[in-house]
């Protein structure tokens, strides 16, 4: 049975949760937030969507398989870890982009953000992999 109200609300919910997760991702490092919690919130949005529309539609929406997202996240983390070596610093040292930007003003951009994005991908990929596998075993569609 289709339930139009539920479908509309879930679509809205997914958007809100994705935007909120990106907000938390950028907020991290200096304030409460960061890649881990942002990844969980993004994955929760997709899980709500999967409960209403089935796992196939979520798989289509995220493009690559969730395992691949996990791998890509780990790759981003690895790159962050070894990037400082090319600037002759110890592994995992934070690097910061200096200076002001023309339109945005003074920004504080560096490798911690990249690291958090990697964590974001790993966590959301992992939670989606677990939940989608369970839903498929239970034939929840």
């Amino acid at each position: 049975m289709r339930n139009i109200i539920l479908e509309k609300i879930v679509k809205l919910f997914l958007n809100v949760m994705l935007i909120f997760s990106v907000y938390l991702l950028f907020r991290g490092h200096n304030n409460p937030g960061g890649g881990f919690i942002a990844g969980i919130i993004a994955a929760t949005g997709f899980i709500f969507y999967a409960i209403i529309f089935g796992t196939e539609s979520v798989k289509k929406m995220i493009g690559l398989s969730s395992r691949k997202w996990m791998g890509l996240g780990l790759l981003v983390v690895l790159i962050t870890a070894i990037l400082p070596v090319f600037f002759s610093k110890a592994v995992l040292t934070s690097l910061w982009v200096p200076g002001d930007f023309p339109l945005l003003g003074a920004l504080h951009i560096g490798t911690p953000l990249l690291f958090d994005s990697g964590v974001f991908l790993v966590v959301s990929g992992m939670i989606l992999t677990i939940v989608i596998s369970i839903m498929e075993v239970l034939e929840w569609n």
Partner: protein
Amino acid sequence: MILPALLLIPFLYIILAILIKSKKVKTWLSFAFSLINLGFAIWVMAQVFEAGMIKTQMGSWPAPFGITLVADRFSAFMLLVSALVFAVVTLYSIQSVDTARIKNGYFLFAHGILMGVNGSFLAGDLFNLYVWFEVMLMGSFILISFGGERAQLEGAIKYLILNLISSFFFVAGIGILYGKMGTLNMADLSQKIAQSGDVLSQLSPAMVLIVVGFAIKGALFPFFFWLPASYHTPPPAVTALFAGLLTKVGIYSLIRIYTLFLYHSTSFWNPVVLWIGILSMVIGVFSASSQYDFRKILSFHIISQLGYVVIGLAFYTVAGLAAAIFFLGHNMISKTNAFLVAGWVHRERQTLNLKVLGDMFKKNTLWGVLFFISAFSLAGLPPLSGFIGKYLVIKAGIESGHINVALVALFVGFFTLFSMVKIWIEVFWKNTPPEVEAPVNTKPLPHGLMISASIILALAIVGMGVFAGPVVNFCEMAASDLLNTELYINFVLK
């Protein structure tokens, strides 16, 4: 700069194994990465040989605050031996492990274990050590329960629960320690304990928790029961990997904290460690002689052999520690090789029950010789590495005035010989019992890679026995570094 590479190489393999689909590519990449890891371990060894110790401060945070990776001679030796064992077991697994397991990421989790083991050998602070223990345990939990056979799940649950309890003890001890001392960097802690004299009595609860945690991980006397209950259930290649690497990390950590913290109150800790060692030796060897399963006998012998290492530590002289380090290296190689041979027997006959096996020597003489080398190295026959190991332990015992302990070690050696002869006769020598129907499949299964893996380790055993001089010298240098705590503290903190 090269120390983080030992952590990042297995990590890179894990990423590739997630992203790459082809089973064949993953398999051979796994072997290639294990060789790269071995190469880096040799490089670390070469640098440590020159410089004595090397360190890296992760993220450029200075020592007592950040995470320090340190490799002294002892760590470098352990890294090298474990990299060798890992590379060989990977080669062996390519042929020995079934397709379904390889497809589902057998090598991925094996590299997870490697990452944890390398990290534990390099960790310069206690919490970091705990984290690497967890990494290692995650991989091993999955490998031991992988495949979901009935017996395997039973073993896995025992393994999982006991190891979780041990992690719990360890982290509780770390919590108390941090509350009292305000630091977890091992060098910093050691220095603070040395400066504040009486404080170690207050730290006893924490130390007891940590030592119990390590004793469970290292399968020492009162806490060994999980090991023989679980090691005979997974595929033989997995058992070989576990026997070579996992318990040894527990013993490594015990040696590390004994030489950094516990030596301050020798009057309490020395008898404890000595008795743990003696009882592990004796009880392990007696339990082994009553078993009739190939892998169970070898599992009980792990406990007994680790007892030798621990009494070497308890002598607490240069000779004793050198003997312990040498014995640890010898045991990793010989034990793994014995399990590799068990894997071949299992592949040919689908069982490891000594009562129904037989005639294996006729089936393939070379495997028989390989078993002979590893088993009689474990039993301590010259010119194999086990002879040198036992000789060093017993000599150190006599020199440090523990004549009775040395006699017990000798006595245990006889029983080890008894068990090994028992396996040799029952599996390789005797005729297959007539009431057991002869195996239908007489054509041998392919075992080229398996046998080359085993030959490499057998050569290492013989090499370690025949050219023992340089290795023993290196172990003595490592031992005197361990006893000279000031050296470690100054190197890490400055």
